[in-house]
């Protein structure tokens, strides 16, 4: 094999290694979905909760891992153990909520305020029937849109 041919093969291999390594690095470090700028599916807390209660399979198919823009009336505002703001939106069930963990704290909000929160719907936990505690629908990485 001529020396020039060997040189060309080595150069091509180096280029391939660089391309594959760069692609792997970019893929491994790709950012999380941009929820702030995404368009959310419009719904409200009462409707969303009712759909999970009445037919959770259908609700999962429609909403699971989907970005939603949920409007509703605030039941409670608190902080979790990592000091992230948690906003509970009222549903038709007094002890159940659409449970929204904020990515960015919503300043000045309080119980009774009407808001819209955009975030990732991750599903419903059915609560505990024995203790009489109804479940919540959970949203993650939420932003206030109204």
């Amino acid at each position, binding site marked *: 094999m001529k020396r020039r041919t060997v040189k060309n093969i080595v150069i091509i291999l180096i280029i391939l290694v660089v391309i594959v390594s760069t692609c792997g690095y970019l893929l491994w470090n790709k950012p999380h*979905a941009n929820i702030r700028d995404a368009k959310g599916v419009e719904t409200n807390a009462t409707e969303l909760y009712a759909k999970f209660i009445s037919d959770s399979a259908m609700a999962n198919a429609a909403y699971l891992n989907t970005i939603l823009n949920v409007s509703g009336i605030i039941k409670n505002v608190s902080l*979790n153990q990592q000091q992230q703001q948690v906003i509970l939106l009222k549903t038709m069930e007094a002890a159940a909520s659409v449970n929204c963990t904020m990515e960015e704290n919503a300043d000045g909000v309080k119980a009774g305020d009407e808001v819209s929160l955009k975030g990732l719907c991750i599903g419903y936990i059915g609560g*505990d029937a024995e203790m009489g505690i109804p479940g919540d629908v*959970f949203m*993650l990485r939420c932003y206030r849109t109204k």
Partner: protein
Amino acid sequence: MSGNCFGQEYFTKNGRISFFSKASLENISADNNQVVSLLNMQTGALRFYVLINAFHFPKAMMEQHFNSDYLESDKYATSTFKGIIAGINNVDLEKDGSYAIDVSGSLEIHGVTKNIKTGGTINVKMESYQPHPSLK
């Protein structure tokens, strides 16, 4: 578990479970702050319910692998624990402190249920308290 109280029964819907794994290439960690957890201070009954896809990783690709390749969260959406804290009567909610406890019960993950027994602590501070069972 700073949460709500009905008599001797305490619960939260925003409890926290986290894990950390030291690896040669890159450490792996995730937090889940949407844990529904219930504790009866009279009987020691402890339960928690976890949405698997609520574990949030620093990197999107880690989260994707965790959900699709390992825990298959589409198929096995939740994990549950039902157990008992031994000697719950030794925990004094009127007195701040750290109380060592033993927990035993059944843990279901990825469609498989196993009996486990582990230690932990209940930290009582002011009027709230936080159970910290550790799984190994």
